[in-house]
């Protein structure tokens, strides 16, 4: 045995002498490097560069004073005291004790007062009770939900629809379900707050383009294309989306959808369309901005809308192809981790959809009223009307701003109070100034519904004119 071992050793020594020089040098360097790493490298632990003694910690803990949980709110903060509505928020609304004509609720098709809708909701209440007591995955799926989803999909002529129990949460859960860290989203500057929260939750790169400016968008897309050519491997896995609204709630104008579809196919980006204000308003049958422009609905990857405006219920839905929508059933946070929509509200939405399907005349009536109001509100001295003629929710902004947002808001509030005294209900559009990315200028919201008569409109316009002449000189 020993002889054998010795023999192996001799061989080793021989090999050592026969090895080329570079080999030996390389091995030597490697061994020295390993020795250095093992024994001589400085371990970097940031928290241990200095260690506090227990006494020092106690002193710091004693000294530390937190800020108050919330900063104090001044008594005359505009959003502190809400206007109280007694009774139903219908066409004749009792606000702060005064009965007024409603120009402020988003009740575009007048379905809040509909007896048919109420009867169906009551029938559902008598069958199912009020709450669902669980999320969709755990015995919270009712046959009413499935029916509403299939009705919505049929109405919009898409493959599938998914409903959420809260309008705000719809687009705010849909965007992060598809777009993750590293993806790119191109958004219009005037996007509403729920879209902004969805973008924030997605952690993707956000690129804003100027409102309705397709050239600006194309410029951004071209820049992105150049970036992609520099790094094709990364570009193959980076998803790109455009998020726009059909009718913008903040500026009351419409997005140029055919142009967007052209850009979609040219630069290979997907489109997410938010149709809260345009669903049940635009188009011959109320199917929204795709019908208005005659765009094929399959060209839009995802349409999201809430059912709280024209449909006069609560909640929201997304519709599109099954390939896209089915994903949200497992990754939409507001869908999986939240209780489902109460069945009576779903039944009310189904009935509202039926009314919309049976009577498409209602949309042309609404369109006529909108242009009537748009016409009448032109030329009020001191106020300028913002919005397209077929938008049902218009904004009245100050022609000349005083420079200070709070004094502008106070002026507008006094106009609104004046109108309330004369039995016309209006409201100042409210925003979270510090949280919004691009705060819209202060404005009064004027909402057109099918229930308003010619006299109502004339009276409202004359009240506003009167108030403007008193307060804005």
């Amino acid at each position: 045995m020993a002889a054998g071992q010795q023999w192996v050793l001799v061989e080793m020594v021989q090999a050592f002498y026969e090895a080329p020089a570079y080999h030996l040098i390389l091995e030597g360097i490697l061994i020295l490097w390993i020795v250095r790493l093992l024994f001589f490298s400085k371990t970097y632990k940031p928290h241990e560069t200095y260690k506090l003694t227990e006494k020092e910690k106690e002193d710091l803990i004693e000294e530390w004073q937190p800020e108050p949980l919330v900063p104090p709110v001044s008594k005359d903060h505009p959003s502190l005291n809400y206007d109280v509505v007694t009774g139903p928020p219908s066409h004749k609304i009792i606000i702060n004790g005064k009965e007024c004509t409603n120009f402020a609720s988003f009740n575009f098709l007048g379905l809040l007062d509909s007896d048919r809708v109420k009867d169906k909701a009551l029938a559902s209440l008598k069958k199912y009770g009020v709450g669902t007591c669980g999320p969709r995955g755990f015995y919270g799926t009712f046959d009413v939900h499935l029916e509403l989803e299939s009705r919505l999909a049929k109405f919009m002529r898409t493959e599938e629809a998914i409903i959420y129990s809260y309008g705000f949460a719809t687009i705010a859960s849909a965007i992060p379900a598809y777009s993750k860290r590293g993806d790119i989203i191109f958004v219009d500057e005037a996007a509403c707050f729920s879209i902004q929260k969805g973008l924030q939750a997605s952690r993707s790169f956000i690129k804003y383009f100027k409102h309705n400016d397709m050239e600006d968008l194309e410029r951004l897309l071209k820049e992105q294309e150049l970036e992609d050519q520099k790094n094709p491997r990364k570009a193959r896995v980076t998803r790109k989306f455009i998020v726009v609204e059909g009718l913008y709630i903040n500026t009351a104008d419409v997005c140029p959808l055919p142009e967007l579809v052209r850009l979609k196919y040219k630069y290979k980006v997907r489109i997410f369309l938010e149709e809260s204000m345009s669903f049940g308003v635009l188009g011959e049958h109320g199917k929204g901005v795709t019908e208005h422009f005659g765009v094929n609905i399959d060209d839009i990857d995802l349409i999201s809308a809430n059912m709280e405006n024209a449909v006069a219920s609560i909640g929201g839905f997304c519709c599109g192809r099954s390939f896209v929508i089915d994903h949200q059933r497992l990754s939409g946070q507001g869908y999986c981790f939240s209780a489902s929509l109460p069945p009576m509200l779903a039944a009310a939405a189904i009935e509202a959809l039926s009314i919309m399907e049976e009577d498409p005349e209602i949309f042309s009536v609404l369109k006529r009223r909108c242009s009537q109001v748009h016409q009448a509100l032109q030329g009020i001295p001191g106020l300028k009307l913002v919005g397209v003629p077929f938008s049902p929710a218009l904004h009245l902004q100050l022609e000349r701003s005083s420079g200070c947002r709070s004094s502008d808001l106070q002026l507008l509030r006094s106009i609104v109070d004046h109108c309330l005294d004369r039995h016309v209900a209006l409201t100042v559009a409210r925003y979270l100034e510090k949280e919004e990315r691009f705060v819209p200028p202060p404005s009064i919201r004027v909402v057109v519904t099918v229930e308003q008569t010619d006299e109502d409109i004339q009276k409202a316009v004359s009240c506003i004119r009167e108030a403007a002449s008193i307060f804005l000189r």
Partner: protein
Amino acid sequence: MTDHMRVLLTKLQSRYCKKCLFAQIYQNAAPNSSLYKKPFSESFEETPLLVAVLTYMGYGILTIFGYFRDFLRHWNIEKCHIAHEREQQKDFVPLYQDFENFYTRNLYMRIRDNWNRPICSVPGAKVDLVERVTHNYNWTFEHTGKVVKDVINMGSYNYLGFAENAGACASAAIETTHAYGVGVASTRCEIGNLDIHEELEQLVARFLGVESSMAFGMGFATNSMNIPALTGKGCLILSDELNHASLVLGARLSGSTIRVFKHNNMQSLEKLLRDAIAHGQPRTHRPWKKILIVVEGIYSMEGSIVRLPEVIALKKRYKAYLYLDEAHSIGALGPNGRGVVDYFGLDPKDVDIMMGTFTKSFGAAGGYIGGRKELIDYLRCHSHSALYATSMSPPVAQQIISSMKIIMGEDGSTLGMHRLRQLSENTTYFRRKLREMGFIIYGNDDSPVVPLMLYMPAKIGAFGREMLKRNIGTVVVGFPATPIIESRARFCVSAAHTREMLDTVSLVNLQTPSSDPLHDGRVMGVRRSRRSVSQLIFYLTDSFMCLHLCV
């Protein structure tokens, strides 16, 4: 010889006693027992080693099969039911990465029939399910048109049994629908603030024992929209490991630094607090603006109750603020149903922000936040929900008002007290029964959420299906809602359940498929508690000793 055997048996007993009761069953005895007015007993029995190994093996086999099936689908040997991208968009960047959906395609799809079961009646103690069949292994479902009647509902969050379509609450909701309609079509800030909302908020404040409160239309959104309004950059959020997705989302959206402490572990929380205050913000070492501790009342996947007296003691010592999410515990805990604060007999003013939902114990929908007047005034002006989201539907608000009045006893009857008592009796009875039968049950002895451990992936599907065959509807959860080897079935006890229903449920867990009740076998071998083994040993040794004493 008798003596020798007796000594041997006693030694055996004591050795098993030590091994089983103290080493393998970890009982959370409260270290600061002086803060607790009654015993706090939670248990999370450790996963047996054999079971853990088998579970990993099970997942391994499933993964291999998954790759094999993907391969077959790729080469069109197996028919592919997955939806596809449009032809015109085939050259777009793929919307989903293949590996993201691997779990969904290959594991979730196989047992998908256990979830999203549609129902067509009130989600009460017994529920009617819509029967559905699948002809292609769960890829698509068809409704047969038949209804499975009177399934015992152990899955809905119906703690106090207010999910009903007749009675005082339903009549009040009907009247409100006639008076107000269903929708509101505006935000709280603009013209959506109805008088019924104000009434609701005053009632909730009175119920909780706080100065003021505010109600929102969705429980999930209450968290995700209000935490960002309260904290921001430069603040620290200390959140429990197992917090709900809405709390995690709210904390992320706020932009604060988030640090996670081990589940219900006060030492971990204290260490984080001390380190945070001593070292300040990361890198700049500036002092934190505020520190917010976010905990839940009952954790719905574990069934554990937060150690509130200790958390409040820590919060007072280190001047932090406490955000308590009582989604499951409001109405379900405490002698008066006022939640976990009532359960421990503490002062509601110690909790800075009391949040909860109306979905579970009140049979409605929505959430609330209660606290001091300054806090609520601030939220009225700065909460995302108050300014941008539609307010709560009037009949839903009325349902909450009526059910809350019943719980408080203000409707003049004792129905509220009766239901609260019934719930706590049912909880105690059900938990004790399951534990005696030898199942591993997680959580606190008083929590109406009862997780029963299954561990193996195959048992998740099998348990759900077998229970449904025997007319019991349960909820089973696996990865990713729980850690990968800790899959479980979750029962939600309700005040509407009768003793007979609970007996049926617990006995069914033991029945053999041959439905021979005398043959005390196991359906799928889910009885794994070591305590049952030790009890068996006790029984055997005791009986041996008795025999020997007789001899």
